[in-house]
């Protein structure tokens, strides 16, 4: 097939600018890397591979701040997913990925294929996915378009994960006007494997086969990677051609076929990689680069479900449910038979060659002949300018906002109906949370917990991101994201192991936004070092803007923890009447960015104050020690809505109540959001041991009662509330808003 333009026409007309390749980059490719003008296909490949989505050219300098090693890390960033040792020759494999742009444009397919993509990253490592999580951020529910997006996103996640038979066991959903024009949909997948089965995305060995397996290639998703690397505006709100369509049934077959090949015939396989963003080109070029090989592909052999596709389209298609394998010469037929059993295509589309050239043939012509490394390693890192946003400098000069709460009961009722705090069961009941029968703690708790079959271990997992704190103070907000995730993991009785992340920001060419990215990563990295939770995988999603308005900087932390004894998993709700109630961690006047501030003033403002990261870490270590020795009956971490909301949540779905002496707290402090705090209940006979473990960090505040009432004496008022009434408010808020006809 002829190229759409000649190299000279490309130089003249600069179509690459529309693909987000800059003129400097184009000139560097022509003058330095190739010593000639790239043809149309080659220019398209460079645009995709050099996009931020594939190359991290903007964010790389910042990402280097993250720690990504410790004794347990087997595989850090750079492969399909990170791998962490969980003893007994087993490993947990996990990664999170954003699918913000597709979900904003077409919520159902965007979310569904977000789940599908992250699952392939897990099983391409040789692991069986065992749990999914999500982190969703939408505009406010009083907007009908947002309600449609929420509904579509939830159905998309559910339909894909449910059909795959992988339980969705935890996640978060928050609402803020800043996400109205740019939804955040971050999907995380967790897999389990025997360490001996670990795979790499590598292609090596001259003469070995490059095999294409799975679904056929169509025109869907062309330019998805560059689409994700540009701003949104009303102009491209209908940019549907870049959104892929998912087929979870096909992916289920692909999963079973790939795992059968990996576990039973490791000797046939050299490497395996998912075809994700930028489809065939990214998977094949990255595998060749990893194996320091050359590669020669015949695109006429690629299974196609549309006719007349150009080389450019075939290479850049982001059709779903496809994988690329490198197979030892002579085993092509063996591999094909496995995929035949599952009614899947498995076709040899090329070979590993000597040297380092990346050669593509189409219609009998060579359409690309460039060094492999020019696509993967020679990307020009972009220097970024950055400066502190004016809004933060201004906020630092302004007086601190202090709420006055005369009626904490009324405030608590209102907070429980805030959509970010209210019950999300109408969403997560659309997800199968129990399939594979290993879910010990499902959605609606601090962290989801799975048992590891055949062992006494468990895995706890959570996703957390709160853009409001990061917006007001990126560095401290970044620390808080990590602390919140760790608090959720520790609450369930698990030891934090490592994290994955999705870094969701606006346009990094704006120096203020780049500063937000830099500072928040700095904060996260510092917290990761203190908690010894390295970053083992993740992704960066920039350009989350709509009509020039950026989202709050929203780094999402996906954390996995190890439960040493599954019988010692700690519930998040109270147990027996007579158990003693403790507040762990000190409460300050922290209202900047809180749900209380948002509810009372309609916006967030002020400066989020630094906190004692080391102190919080030490307290959590002591708390976990008490839990592992069986001294804790229940534990719930304090987050949005502070102590007041946390107390109510620990009583919901039980028939218990609490009688509390909180006279050292004001009504306002009941809703302060100081990080690193917990409500803990302890059986009377474990009190001495618990107090010894926690020391001054734990303050005895009351007793669990048999009356279904929340009673508390505060410094300036009293609370006396029916838990049943509170639960009803909390449960009805979202279903009621979703039904609105406005």
């Amino acid at each position: 097939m002829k190229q759409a333009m000649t190299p000279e026409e490309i130089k003249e007309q600069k179509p690459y600018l529309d693909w987000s390749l800059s003129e400097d980059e184009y000139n560097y490719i022509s003058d330095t890397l190739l010593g000639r003008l790239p043809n149309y296909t080659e220019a398209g490949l460079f645009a995709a591979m050099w996009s931020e989505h594939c190359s991290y050219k903007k964010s790389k300098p910042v990402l280097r701040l993250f720690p990504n090693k410790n004794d347990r890390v087997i595989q850090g960033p750079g492969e399909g997913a990170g791998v962490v040792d969980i003893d007994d020759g087993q490993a947990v494999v996990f990664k999170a990925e954003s699918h913000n742009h597709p979900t904003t444009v077409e919520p159902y397919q965007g979310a569904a294929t977000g789940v599908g993509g992250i699952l392939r990253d897990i099983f391409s490592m040789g692991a069986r996915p065992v749990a999914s999580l999500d982190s969703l951020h939408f505009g406010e529910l009083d907007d009908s378009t947002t309600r449609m997006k929420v509904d579509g996103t939830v159905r998309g996640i559910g339909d894909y994960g449910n059909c795959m038979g992988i339980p969705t066991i935890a996640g978060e959903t928050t609402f803020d006007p800043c996400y109205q024009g740019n939804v955040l949909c971050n999907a995380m997948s967790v897999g389990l494997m025997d360490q001996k089965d670990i795979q790499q995305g590598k292609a090596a060995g001259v003469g070995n086969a490059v095999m294409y397996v799975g679904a056929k290639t169509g025109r869907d998703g062309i330019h998805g990677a560059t689409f994700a690397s540009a701003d949104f505006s009303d102009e491209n709100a209908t940019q549907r051609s870049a959104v892929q369509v998912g087929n979870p049934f096909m992916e289920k077959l692909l999963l079973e076929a790939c795992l059968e090949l990996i576990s039973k015939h490791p000797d046939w396989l050299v490497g395996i990689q998912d075809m994700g963003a930028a489809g065939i080109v990214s998977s094949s070029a990255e595998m060749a680069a990893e194996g320091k090989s050359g590669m020669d592909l015949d695109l006429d052999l690629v299974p196609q479900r549309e006719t007349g596709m150009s080389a450019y389209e075939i290479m850049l298609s982001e059709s779903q449910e496809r994988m690329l394998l490198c197979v030892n010469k002579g085993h092509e037929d063996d591999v094909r038979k496995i995929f035949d059993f599952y009614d899947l295509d498995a076709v040899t589309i090329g070979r590993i060659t000597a040297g380092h050239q990346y050669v593509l043939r189409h219609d009998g012509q060579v359409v690309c002949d460039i060094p492999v490394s020019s696509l993967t390693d020679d990307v020009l890192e972009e220097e970024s300018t950055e400066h502190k946003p004016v809004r933060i400098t201004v906020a630092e000069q302004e007086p601190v906002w202090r709420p006055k709460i005369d009626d904490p009961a009324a405030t608590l009722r209102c907070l429980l109906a805030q959509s970010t705090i209210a019950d999300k069961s109408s969403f997560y009941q659309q997800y199968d949370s129990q399939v594979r029968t290993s879910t010990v703690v499902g959605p609606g708790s601090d962290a989801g917990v799975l048992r590891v079959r055949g062992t006494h271990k468990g895995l706890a997992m959570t996703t957390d991101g709160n853009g409001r704190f990061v917006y007001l103070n990126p560095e401290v907000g970044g620390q808080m994201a990590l602390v919140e995730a760790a608090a959720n993991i520790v609450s369930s009785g698990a030891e934090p192991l490592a994290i994955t992340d999705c870094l969701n920001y606006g346009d990094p060419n704006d120096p203020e936004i780049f500063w937000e990215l830099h500072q928040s990563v700095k904060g996260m990295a510092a917290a990761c070092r203190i908690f010894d939770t390295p970053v083992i995988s993740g992704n960066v999603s920039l350009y989350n803007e709509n009509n020039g308005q950026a989202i709050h900087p929203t780094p999402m932390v996906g954390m996995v923890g190890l439960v040493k004894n599954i019988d010692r998993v700690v519930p998040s709700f109270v147990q027996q009447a007579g158990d003693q109630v403790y507040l762990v961690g000190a409460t300050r006047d922290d209202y900047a960015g809180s749900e209380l501030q948002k509810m009372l003033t309609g916006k967030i403002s002020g400066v989020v104050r630094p906190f004692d990261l080391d102190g919080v870490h030490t307290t959590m270590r002591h708390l976990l020690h008490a839990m592992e020795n069986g001294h804790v009956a229940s534990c719930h971490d304090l987050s949005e809505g502070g102590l007041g909301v946390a107390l109510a949540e620990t009583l919901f779905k039980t028939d218990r109540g609490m009688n509390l002496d909180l006279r050292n707290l004001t009504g306002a402090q009941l809703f302060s959001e100081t990080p690193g705090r917990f409500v803990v209940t302890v059986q009377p006979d474990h009190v001495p041991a618990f107090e010894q473990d926690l020391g001054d960090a734990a303050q005895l505040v009351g007793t669990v009662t048999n009356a279904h009432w929340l009673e508390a004496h505060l410094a300036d008022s009293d609370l006396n509330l029916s838990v049943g009434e509170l639960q009803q408010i909390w449960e009805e808020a979202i279903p009621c808003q979703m039904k609105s006809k406005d």
Partner: protein
Amino acid sequence: MRIAVIVFPGSNCDVDLYEALGTVCGADVAYVSHHEHSLVGFDAVMLPGGFSYGDYLRAGAIARFTNIMPAIIKMAEEGKPVFGTCNGFQILTEAGLLPGALKRNDSQRFVCKAVPLEVVNNQTLFTSRYRPHERISLPIAHADGSFYADQKTLDRLEANHQVVFRYAEENPNGSLRNIAGITNQRGNVLGMMPHPERAVEAILGNTDGLRLFKSLLTNGSVKVGE
């Protein structure tokens, strides 16, 4: 007794059934692929939940044409125990081994949660260890669980005591007469939307499904008469 768990393309609760029977109950159980033609050597067969053929066309509609189906039908005709949960139930109705059909939930949404059930008939191979009209709780996880049959069929099901489980408090999907599980007239084929295999271990918070498998393992070798 030796039990087959059928694996259709897209089955995903096959592991759960296998583990409930094998690991928890200590039964002799094996996976059998839909490609196979025979179930010789097996005393009972189970059809797992999941999304056979992606639920394309209609849940269970394509799975009934697989190679293994005639062997399953043969076992049913021989009076051997045949059990289907969720997608397995849907396949059994599509194959004509059970009457009625499973329609889309009234809510038009997938729903996953524990629901209260009444054991309406404890005189079956599968329910003899439950007390008459006992209230139990089992998880459901489906988008197409609304049981439908015409009035005559429903009356006949009731008259013959073929309604084995009924939703007890709320009806989560719009099933007629709150039906959650039925047998064939002979009583050796049971289909149900709830998942007993998800409720067999205390660590997962519910053991109400355990007695269904224990009932079968006790009674299964007794051949049900014509």
